[in-house]
């Protein structure tokens, strides 16, 4: 995946720009499929800038009722990059700054997977799926997409 700053000016650190010759994490699959529906319909993903919660990609055409944009907006709070919220959410666990890498959130309606990009610390891959797929598949598929991001 190419990097650049022109399209996402103002982002601290390397920007993430999908290359046309690499499958987007939104559509690439792990090869292990749930029983019904396509992977892209089951699990919706998008790259998000952590500092601002801004989506770095357009949402898929059929996001359904999954709250991906709302999750993106909450990323600064969740990953604690805001000075005020960092002390509120992460505190100083174990006497040092603790770096949240990934988070799985489970409700009766959805499974949300939030994963920092290992090579782009200011970006995260946010994935959401309904409960018609297993949590194991959702997390596995989300991790597969992270590897391709």
């Amino acid at each position, binding site marked *: 995946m190419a990097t650049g700053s022109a399209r996402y000016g103002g982002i601290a650190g390397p920007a993430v720009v999908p290359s046309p010759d690499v499958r987007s994490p939104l559509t690439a699959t792990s090869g292990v499929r749930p029983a019904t529906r396509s992977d892209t319909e089951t699990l919706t993903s998008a790259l998000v800038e952590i500092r601002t919660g801004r989506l770095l990609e357009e949402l898929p055409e059929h996001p359904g009722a999954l*709250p991906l944009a*709302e*999750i993106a*907006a*909450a990323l600064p*709070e*969740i990953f604690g990059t805001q000075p005020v919220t960092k002390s*509120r*959410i*992460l*505190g*100083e*666990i*174990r006497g040092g700054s*603790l*770096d*949240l*890498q*990934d*988070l*799985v*959130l*489970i*409700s*009766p*309606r*959805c499974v*949300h997977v939030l994963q920092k990009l290992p090579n782009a610390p200011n970006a995260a891959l946010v994935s959401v799926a309904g*409960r018609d797929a297993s*949590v*194991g598949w959702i*997390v596995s598929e989300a991790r597969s997409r992270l590897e391709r991001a």
Partner: protein
Amino acid sequence: MLSKVAVRASIPPSIPVEAGILSRALEVLERVETLPADAVGALRFGPEGLLLVESRAVCWAAAPGMRHRLTQLLRYEHDPPLSKEHLREVYRQCKDGQLPLVDGLLSTGKLLPNALRSALFRHTTEAIAHLASSGVRYEGFVPQPRYRARFPFSTAEILAYLGARCDPQLATDAAAVLEANLVPETSGWAFLRDAGMGAPVVVAARGSPPLPGAEMLEISSWAASLFDVTGVFDDGVRIASAGFRDGLYVVAWRAGETYFAAVCTNRAGAARLVAGLDRKLMAR
């Protein structure tokens, strides 16, 4: 005649009831948690207060005014209650023979190990609460030979016992949840978000290795805030599983008023815990 459980329960806990005692008890326990891992000795508080510590576990604690408290607790761990004279004789034999009191008490056959542990635990927690309440000055640490205590108590379980006074039934239920769900090599605890204390209150703790109290509270605050934030996009979030850079894995979940958190030693353990919680909490 009252059952043994009823008689034991009728002994009022000798723990001061006042605001701020949990935070001050936490300060006392932090003295234990910040000792070197292999330290053995006595933390002294004023002329009569002490905690005997071994490998960051509390073996015994005493505070001013508690001279006869252990006798009272031990008497009612047996049905009918043991006589004071019997216990005094055991004390004397232990002193004369330089035998550890725990061994002496168990050798009589009148006290089961669980009952003796229960009495020692109550005495220890009450003493810590009294030391916290009195604000007595910390004097220092006196190293001593290894105790090889048969019943060491973690600071986590002491903190949870004190916190459980907020709602004993809820604490009991929460302990059952932990026992039913925790996987091996996981430390877990239940907490109330506030309970009027302005900070999370740990009410039950299970698993190993036990965490320091301050760390439990920090993670509890983090988990509570996280559920607040997730409410913005999905107010039904009940389970959260977090991976941190230095290999820390935290699973948090909530059921009604009670929140839970667990620290797992590896991602596989966290995944197992989450799978079990998902089956039970999200039954569809």
